């Protein structure tokens, strides 16, 4: 007899809570949350312990009750708060590759020479930067097209005028701003001294030297923000600094000339100016491609496919006797399915946050198709399909989510509920009591037939009930209509599945009868909207403790608009104050 063990109190989530969650609590969690967490953890075992309320999306002066009104409208927030960010942000490897590729007009992968991706500048990285710069320079000089793109003039006379033009044009793109006269002079000196710096002193050889040098420059490798003058409690950024923030946020790559032009005109100082540029950047085909890549990465982050939570999305193992559609490595396709879904909804369907959680669209590979009752096909072909809108509303009814959040023989009500609680609603809970995970699921009995019944019975007692009964379990009930691989079902162990439930959302008691109702509840939830904004900001600023002040509220409100799309959200995000100002305190 095997013992069916469920992760009690969503134990895995707690054990794998990444450090930033604690940071969040320390930096950002206000009294409410602190009290609430204490209620769920510190007093585990006390009869009648009140489960925590949601993570309040309001500011420190927000309501104090665990289930108080937390809607983003009308609550207090800090109107001048902007993210506390480092002044120096070294290009990530992905940014470095894209930036170099765009600068030289060749698809190159120089990060391959930099060793493992680590923070800062290490010996390995620095030596790699040098050899990568030399290698890129050699490729440019060896490619007539790339060379002609960088050298747009014909050297005449002593050639210094043309060299100066190369420096001005390429330097502006590499430094993401116009070079200072001292910087220009330093590069021009490499031309003057080219005989000493190259073998034959030709113009072409100098171009290689120039590229090699500038690709090692701190002002190229670092995104530097120099602005230091405060105004009204924060520091306005210069146009080029804003342009850089925007381009890496939308494209994960460098600003183009049009964006730099707008910066130099001063357009980016206003929200409207930033909006105009962002809309342009998301309208051009090449820009959309870059934005799609970025949203894909941000989505993986939002959904926890990277970092501590990623264990839930990987190493999926299912009993092949119960799940004929299972195959080893299915988790890779599951993750791909979900990311393609987000991409499809956001860009092909021009959908918004609500669509993400409610759309019947899916993008399915030939191998995953049978899970949806569709004919199987080529494993490498991904096809957009429209599913039954009643059965399959949105992201959380995609097999990619349901099939990964399960156990060997069945789906996991608790994992699924925990996902909604933590990832979609940004709530936190305390650690489960010792031994919780090893508590066996009760055996089938006359009144314990379905998984839901058994899980509820298992978690009904003290201390589990504090977290499970009103919070975790009701967030997973709707997905009882899907088995451990995400196949739709109406019965579980011979008994009808029960997908109804009641939970507290945004401070109110809300009931649903199935996954569709539930998806609509989440899609319309200010808390879920604000959580999405926060997760996106975490990704954008690489900072789990990022503070957006009222911008977070405003962006959440934007998501709630009927015509809001993911693209319009991106536009609003980079138009916000978070992209135009630095905080007056430096990142530690």
């Amino acid at each position: 007899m095997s013992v069916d063990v469920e992760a009690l109190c969503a134990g895995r989530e707690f054990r794998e809570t990444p450090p930033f969650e604690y940071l969040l609590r320390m930096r950002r969690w206000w009294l409410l949350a602190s009290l609430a967490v204490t209620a769920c953890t510190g007093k585990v075992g006390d009869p009648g312990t009140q489960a925590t309320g949601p993570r309040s999306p309001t500011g420190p002066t927000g309501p104090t009750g665990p289930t108080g009104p937390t809607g983003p409208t009308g609550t207090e927030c800090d109107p001048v708060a902007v993210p506390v960010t480092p002044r120096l942000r070294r290009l990530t490897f992905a940014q470095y590759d894209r930036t170099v590729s765009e600068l030289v007009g060749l698809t190159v992968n120089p990060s391959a020479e930099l060793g493992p991706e680590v923070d800062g500048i290490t010996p390995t990285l620095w030596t790699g930067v040098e050899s990568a710069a030399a290698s890129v320079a050699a490729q440019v000089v060896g490619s007539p097209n790339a060379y002609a793109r960088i050298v747009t003039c014909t050297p005449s006379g002593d050639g210094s005028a043309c060299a100066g033009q190369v420096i001005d044009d390429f330097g502006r793109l590499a430094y993401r701003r116009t070079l200072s006269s001292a910087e220009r002079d330093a590069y021009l000196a490499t031309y003057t001294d080219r005989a000493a710096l190259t073998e034959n002193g030709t113009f072409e050889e100098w171009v290689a030297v120039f590229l090699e040098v500038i690709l090692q420059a701190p002002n190229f490798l670092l995104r530097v923000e120099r602005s230091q003058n405060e105004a009204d409690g924060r520091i306005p950024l210069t146009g080029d600094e804003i342009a850089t923030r925007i381009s890496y946020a939308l494209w994960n790559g460098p600003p183009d000339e049009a964006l730099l032009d707008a910066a130099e005109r001063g357009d980016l100082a206003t929200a409207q100016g930033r909006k105009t540029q962002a809309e342009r950047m998301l309208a051009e085909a090449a820009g959309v491609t870059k934005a799609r890549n970025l949203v894909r990465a941000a989505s993986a982050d939002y959904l926890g496919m990277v970092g501590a939570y990623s264990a839930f999305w990987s190493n999926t193992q299912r009993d092949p006797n119960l799940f004929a559609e299972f195959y080893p490595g299915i988790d890779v396709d599951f993750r791909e399915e979900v990311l393609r879904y987000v991409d499809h909804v956001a860009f092909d369907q021009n959908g918004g946050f609500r669509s993400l959680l409610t759309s019947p669209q899916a993008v399915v590979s030939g191998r995953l198709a049978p899970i949806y009752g569709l004919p199987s096909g080529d494993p490498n072909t991904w096809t957009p399909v429209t599913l039954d809108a009643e059965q399959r509303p949105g992201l959380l009814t995609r097999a990619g989510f349901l099939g990964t959040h399960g156990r060997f023989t069945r789906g996991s009500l608790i994992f699924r509920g925990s996902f909604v609680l933590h990832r979609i609603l940004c709530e936190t809970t305390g650690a489960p009591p010792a031994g919780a995970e090893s508590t066996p699921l009760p055996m089938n009995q006359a009144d314990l037939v379905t998984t839901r019944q058994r899980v509820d019975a298992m978690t009904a007692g003290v201390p589990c009930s504090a977290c499970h009964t009103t919070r975790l379990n009701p967030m997973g009930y709707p997905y009882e209509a899907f088995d451990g691989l995400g196949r739709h079902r109406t019965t579980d162990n011979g008994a009808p599945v029960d997908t109804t439930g009641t939970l507290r959302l945004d401070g109110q008691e809300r009931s649903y009868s199935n996954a569709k109702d539930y998806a609509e509840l989440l899609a319309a939830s200010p808390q879920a909207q604000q959580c999405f904004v926060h997760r996106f900001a975490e990704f954008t600023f690489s900072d789990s403790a990022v503070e957006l002040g009222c911008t977070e509220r405003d962006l959440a409100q934007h998501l709630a608009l009927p015509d809001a799309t993911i693209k319009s959200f991106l536009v609003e995000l980079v138009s916000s104050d978070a992209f135009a100002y630095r905080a007056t305190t430096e990142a530690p």
Partner: protein
Amino acid sequence: MNFPRRRFLKGLGGALVGLPALSIFSRPVAAQTTPTPKRAVFFWSPNGFNLSTFYPRNRHGGGSSAFGPLTADTFAARALDTSTTLTNGVPRAIFRHPEWGLRNLQAYSSRISVLRGMRNSRQGFLDLADGGDHGMNTANRFTAAGIGGGQGLALGRSLDYAIADAINPVVDGQKLPLVLHVGTNADPRNGNGTSFISYKGPEDPDPGINNPWVAYRRLMGISSGSPAEDHLVRKRRRVADLVRGELQQIQGLRLGNRDRQLVTNWLGLLEETEDGMNNMGLMCTTAARDGLAPEANVRAYEGRTNDQLGRYEDFQQIGDLMMKIIALSFLCDHTRVATIQWSSGAGGPAFGSMGIGSGQNGTWHGGERHHELSHRNGSDGAEPGFLTDVERNMSWIDMWYGDRYRDLLGYLDGFSLLDDSVVVWMPEFGDGRQHHFIDITAVVAGTAGGYLRSGQMFDCSSNGRWDERLDTETNGPRIGPADNPANVYNLDIGWIDGCSSHNKLLTTVFNAVLPRGQDGRPTNPVRRFPEVDTADPHNHLEDGELTQLLA
């Protein structure tokens, strides 16, 4: 737009940036540590040693064990004894002369180890050795493989090939060791067990490059006579100046701790880079190359035939160039493992032909080949006979090889490569007189960056009782009447019990150069080299490393 030297510049650039970094890594400046490349050299000499004189002497001054630290005392000068007194039935004077194998390695005493108490993995002697005693020992030395019939070749690949496969950079699409041979080499199709020490695979020997000009040509990529490295250095200085200027400007901003640390680290790296540029001798440059091995010296061998390359007159000069080529190849990261084979099993030159040995005290048999002297009778056979001062001749030859080994260490150390390397000197046999497979000695220099211990004589036997085997004066084999080399060509020293198989040393060396984790241990260690055992019932492998050697 044509850059004929592009490849050179790229290679040179890599070395230029890589090598100064060595000094970075060895200093605590940088918070992050990055592994420096580890390297291995296998130095092989024929005919075994004169074990009665070879070792530093720990017990000479009354010490209780032959094993322990190598100190100035253990390297103390040895006086010539001309007496005829018998000690324990043997005229000890035959072992008492100033020459001995490691005499001139005192400068490296803290950086070498002397290993005792091993046997060949391949056991057996004339009676059951395919390839004969010489062939078996030679083929088995760096393969620890069984011996095949017919040509008597090793049945597995040698450690140099295995290491190259594991750690070498890819050069011209391959990861190969640099295999060098001093003297005339054999065609793999008709050579035998005595011919080769390096094997690509079972019965697939690599005879090695024996023309220094051929081996050198790869170094010609360091453009001959071009001041290209000067351009490169000037360019690097320009980069350093520019980067420093920008960083100093950035330092003037109001920075958080992390930002400030980033700038500080970067400036520190620049400083190290500049230090490196100030020491061009440590970089893969024409200056370094020409300083060590000027092209003209090597080009002299262009067009030499295989037979001509075996001329005794050139033995030392070719060997010296080969060792310099090893050091330069390491410097330029063309390879991280090299093998140098001096002559072949049962081989070796007549040293007199090299014009050396004149002025040698005592009777110097300059016309006798090494193998003939190793039999003590001036013959390639085992018939009775004992040449005057022949033990001293043998000691002198050991010392001659010891001096070559010392030169190799010097070339590596001149490029600051020694401490991160393992340089293994192993002879064909243990005792040259016995031609036997036991009492195998190895000298190991370098610690592979701290993986190994050094500065010691180590008892590598399995029971730690090797002292009991040793003569208390010489630290060599016990000397009794039956062992009197003047009288007996003794084939029965019978010390197999307690010996560790020499494949454990090979395993240790292999692991020493593999990538390591935080704990200093290889992330993917080998349990045993060779990993594949062969069908030879006489080849007895042991698992694990020689733990005595581990730091």
